[in-house]
């Protein structure tokens, strides 16, 4: 369990954007794994199984507890950002005094602060490598909406990070050199 707990918790926390709920989901995943302990012990697919179960349980949790409120909450947010695409400009200055841990913490915090209709497809696309079509089917929305939400999610993430002092151009150049 010690080997996989960070991976399982990260998967749930990034999808849910909530530490307490992620801990509950992680606990559920490991209890499920305990029931299949004989199958999973020493299996090379154990990590993949745990990640898949964590993803599915997180998405089920979101749909179970939030679906009925979407009409009153997320829908309002959708209406608010239905206008033109947000502007995204790459700043031309750099900030050198942030270390890797600080940058990671800022990026995670910015990700958590995105609305769920942007964060969830963004996480599934970039962390789970799911194609647009699969995300749309899993979330039961159109492919067009998924593409729009992911694009707006990226732009919102960049804006949030720029506002918090993480310079996008700086991170981009670092990532190209395998630093970020």
């Amino acid at each position, binding site marked *: 369990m010690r080997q996989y707990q*960070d991976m399982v918790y990260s998967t749930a926390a990034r999808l849910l954007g909530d530490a307490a709920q992620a801990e509950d989901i992680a606990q559920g995943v490991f209890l499920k794994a305990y029931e299949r302990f004989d199958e999973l012990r020493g299996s090379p697919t154990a990590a993949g199984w745990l990640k898949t179960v964590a993803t599915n349980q997180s998405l089920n949790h979101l749909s179970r507890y939030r679906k009925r409120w979407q009409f009153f909450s997320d829908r309002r947010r959708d209406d608010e950002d239905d206008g033109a695409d947000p502007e995204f400009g790459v700043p031309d200055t750099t900030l050198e005094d942030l270390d890797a841990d600080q940058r990671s913490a800022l990026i995670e915090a910015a990700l958590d602060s995105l609305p769920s209709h942007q964060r969830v497809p963004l996480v599934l696309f*970039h962390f789970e490598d799911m194609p647009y079509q699969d995300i749309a089917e899993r979330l039961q929305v159109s492919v067009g909406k998924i593409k729009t939400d992911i694009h707006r999610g990226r732009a919102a993430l960049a804006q949030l990070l720029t506002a918090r002092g993480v310079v996008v151009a700086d991170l981009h150049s670092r990532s190209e050199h395998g630093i970020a």
Partner: protein
Amino acid sequence: MESPDRNQERLAQWVHHALRGLPPRNAPAGLQSRVLAAIARRSAQPWWEQHFLRWPLPARLGFLLLSAVIARLLLQASGWMIDRLRELGVSPVVATQARELRSDWSFIASLNDTLHVVLNAIPSPWLYGSLAVIGLMYATLFGIGSVAYRTFNQERS
């Protein structure tokens, strides 16, 4: 100045690298002890409080048999009750449906017909009025719930 497509492409690349470069989040220190405590609690539960699939096989078979017997008894009891109603002078059509329900195994069709007869016997204003009241109560509760959610949950987040 870069084209919007090129800008979006750069943004997508940057986000991908930034997110994929993140280390896993550290699980809370108490997670492992929570899981172990939950496993211990679960193991300490008697079998009848555990999930049905974890019951011993004889107990599962016994439960299914008992359920079938109870269902049969309930059907017989409902037949007996309808017979008593017939004796009290309730519509003979209902009594006929009840006899079919008892004697024939096509419960679902008989039940459906019986329901139709019963629904037809209820005056329309009562039926529609009841449905309207139920709908109104549901809408009211849903509205109160959504207002409470927006007030307490969204303000907190």
